[in-house]
């Protein structure tokens, strides 16, 4: 064996790779008497120790950006075929228990929920952090695969009044694709007197028709004159609704987790025998998960920034428990004082909603029958031109979504569409409403004047609004012949893709629709770049805004000929729940107007003089000779932070 061969063997052995015994022996024997090979072995060992003994390198944490990209990827239907998503669920063998004692029900809840997950429960590392994007992406991708759901819940409410410190209510929730929901609340509380009306509620949504029944809210301990007693059940029936299905987030929190911002993933832990992901968010952010509070009856009040702890099943992403705790903030104390409420401990829950059982067994269709509603007339797309005089625009790329209903509303309210197409896949939905004789002003449908103007596909214009106030993400499209309104619980990107596939090309709203006003006051919608220039703000202003915020739209206002102001509307692009919409109003060459509220305090920050009006959540200041007003329910500190970023940039 020569040096070359011996060193090859030495090198290979150094790396722990297998070498034939004969070769190894021969190499060792050669090296023993060969200085060159000994030096080779020594230097190789030195190189190894130099390379391996090294201080820790600084490695960036890329989990969040990676998971954001992955979660986005996951929502593209072409990459996640329906069959693959559906195997995440399995029909349980048993129907849900209807009359179980709470303890028994709680004990089996884990088993039933567990059966929704293929592969059964697995143990997770409790202390491993979880990216917000993983929660968002997982919830989002579970939505189209969920075709049926039945769940029972208990609701414990504390602190309604001194007479009724604790209430117990039971709730049944059912969902059947396409877009049929039922929520029933049965109040089990023993009230101190008959003056109290139990909060028994029934809500049914069958595609676009909704039915609500329940007592009007009035606590029994309020004087008769303040709140007239009513035992009568008020029932409401609407033939057409463009809004998001009310109880959807109780089934799966798609709207709540429509953005990666505004919530914190705490940890993983075992809950009721299940692997759960624990999330913390504000009451306002979690509002879609408490639909029963909005349907009717009497409920205790909640502070927007109260803390909500949420346990999500780590396999099915169903909410297992939601507990609301009073916020620790000083603003909470002020709120308690303002509403004359007792001081509440931040350590005890004031509302505790627990899932007792759940199954994917399809509920009986009769559960969704709406009392007093006539069966909708079935329509075919092909028949519509003869019936309504036009063929409604249909998206060319609806992905997995299927057309499940065509509604031709008969009541002619001012903003009712003349046709409405509903597309669905599991819990996912998309509504395309169309109207041929819309005269404005403003975009058609529940889309505000301050919606963000965006460009679709090949240059078409649309007006976009993030999810919020009971609606999903919305888009209004104006064309010379028709006005369209599109609403969905899909992501912003997906909505824009689908909208771009509609056979219409949107135009900017007519200039006459963009101008509003009364004698002496004129308000005109203008472009964001133009607004920044007019206000003397740098084009880089959006970069100084808090994370996620964009300048969605802007208005120019003129009072007489003297005062000219610019208002910028700042919003989160996915959902308003991720951060309150803000308005920043700027008037050049203007000082602070006279005080307009008794509860105003003077402040000085970053060299600017200003004042804070808590009941309007308004921060005003003068800087660079210009008057600034920043308004939005973010709290003083957050507003001050934004204001400090703006101070000094007005030219």
């Amino acid at each position, binding site marked *: 064996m020569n040096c070359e061969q011996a*060193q*090859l063997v030495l*090198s*290979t052995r150094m*790396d*722990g*790779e297998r070498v034939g015994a004969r070769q190894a022996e021969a190499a060792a024997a050669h090296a023993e008497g060969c200085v060159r090979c000994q*030096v*080779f072995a020594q*230097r*190789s060992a*030195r*190189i*190894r120790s*130099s*390379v*391996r*003994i*090294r*201080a820790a*390198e600084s*490695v*960036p*944490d*890329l*989990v969040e*950006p*990676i*998971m954001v*990209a*992955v*979660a986005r*990827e*996951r929502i593209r239907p072409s*990459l*996640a075929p329906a069959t*693959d*998503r559906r*195997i*995440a669920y399995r029909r349980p063998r048993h129907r849900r228990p209807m009359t179980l004692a709470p303890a028994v029900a709680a004990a089996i809840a884990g088993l039933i929920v567990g059966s929704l997950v*293929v*592969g059964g429960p*697995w143990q*997770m*590392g409790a202390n*491993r*952090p*979880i*990216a917000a994007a*993983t929660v968002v*992406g*997982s919830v989002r*991708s579970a939505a189209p695969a969920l075709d049926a759901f039945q769940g029972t819940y208990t609701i414990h409410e504390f602190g309604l009044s001194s007479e009724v410190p604790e209430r117990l209510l039971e709730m049944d929730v059912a969902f059947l694709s396409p877009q049929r929901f039922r929520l029933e609340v049965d109040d089990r509380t023993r009230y101190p007197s008959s003056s109290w009306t139990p909060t028994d509620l029934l809500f049914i949504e069958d595609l676009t028709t909704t039915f609500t029944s329940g007592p009007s809210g009035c606590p029994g301990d309020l004087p008769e004159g303040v709140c007239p007693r009513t035992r009568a059940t008020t029932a409401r029936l609407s033939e057409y609704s463009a809004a998001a299905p009310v109880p959807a987030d109780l089934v799966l929190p798609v709207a709540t987790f429509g953005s990666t911002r505004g919530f914190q993933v705490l940890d993983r832990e075992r809950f009721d025998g299940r692997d759960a*992901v624990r999330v913390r968010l504000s009451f306002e952010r979690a509002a879609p998960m408490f639909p029963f509070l909005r349907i009717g009856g009497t409920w205790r009040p909640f502070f927007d920034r109260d803390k909500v702890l949420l346990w999500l099943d*780590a*396999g099915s992403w169903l909410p297992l428990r939601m507990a609301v705790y009073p916020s620790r903030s000083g603003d909470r104390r002020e709120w308690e004082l303002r509403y004359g409420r007792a001081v509440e401990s931040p350590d005890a829950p004031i509302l505790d909603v627990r899932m007792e059982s759940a199954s994917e067994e399809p509920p009986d269709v009769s559960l969704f029958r709406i009392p007093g509603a006539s069966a909708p007339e079935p329509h075919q797309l092909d028949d519509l031109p003869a019936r309504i005089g036009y063929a409604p625009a249909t998206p060319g790329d609806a992905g997995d979504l299927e057309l499940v209903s065509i509604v031709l509303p008969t009541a002619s309210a001012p903003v009712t569409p003349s046709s409405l197409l509903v597309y669905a896949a599991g819990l996912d939905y998309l509504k395309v409403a169309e109207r041929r004789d819309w005269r404005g002003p403003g975009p058609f449908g529940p889309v505000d004047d301050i919606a963000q103007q965006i460009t679709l596909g090949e240059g078409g214009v649309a007006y976009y609004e993030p999810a919020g106030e009971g609606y999903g993400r919305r888009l209004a499209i104006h064309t010379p012949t028709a006005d369209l309104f599109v609403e969905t619980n899909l992501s912003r990107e997906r909505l824009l893709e689908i909208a771009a596939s509609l056979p219409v090309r949107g135009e900017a709203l007519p200039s006459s629709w963009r101008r509003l006003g009364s004698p002496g006051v004129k308000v005109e919608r203008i472009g964001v770049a133009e607004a920044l220039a007019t206000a003397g703000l740098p084009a880089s202003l959006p970069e100084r805004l808090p994370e996620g915020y964009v300048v969605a739209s802007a208005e120019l206002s003129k009072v007489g000929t003297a005062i000219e102001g610019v208002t910028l509307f700042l919003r989160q692009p996915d959902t308003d729940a991720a951060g309150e919409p803000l308005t920043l109003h700027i008037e050049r060459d203007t000082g602070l107007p006279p005080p307009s509220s008794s509860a105003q305090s003077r402040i000085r920050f970053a060299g600017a003089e200003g004042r804070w009006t808590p009941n309007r959540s308004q921060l005003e200041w003068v800087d660079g000779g210009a008057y600034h007003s920043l308004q939005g329910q973010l709290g003083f500190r957050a507003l001050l932070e934004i204001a400090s970023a703006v101070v000094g940039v007005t030219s």
Partner: protein
Amino acid sequence: MRDPDPRTVQRARRGDLLAFEDLVREFQADAFRFAWHLTRDRQLAEDVTQEAFLRAFRFLKGFRGDRKFGSWLFSIVRNCAMDSLRRQRRSEMPWDDQFLPRSLADPTARAELEAALRSVSAEHREAFLLVEVFGLSYQETADVLGVAVGTVKSRMFRARQALCLAIADEEEAT
């Protein structure tokens, strides 16, 4: 490099984002270091790492487990790094004085090694990096580089020879 729990990989293949996030947490440091060694540019290495995990997520269904997850991921990191270098019209792996971390305990040893490594060809350096720095086996290295095990064996030997020679020159010079 430790291989992940096969159940985690299985769950991630079924589209479980929590499981995929576990894989990201476990491998992001190694993936980033490898990307950094290939690009010598921190920002580029971050981009490459992100892109590599995104591609891994896309292709995970096709990962059959016939090779180790780590080497499969490293081959994706390598492809991403090559793509981004190509986009920057840099055909070869860049080279500067930072092959090893500046914080290496012995500055003399570091300088010596830096100089030595500079004398090694890119393909030998790559094999050396995977085996010596990342602790991959020859088979795993072969999987990453898409070459035969014998090729890795000979590249490691050639790399060591060149390094030993370079160190000898340094010793003589001092």
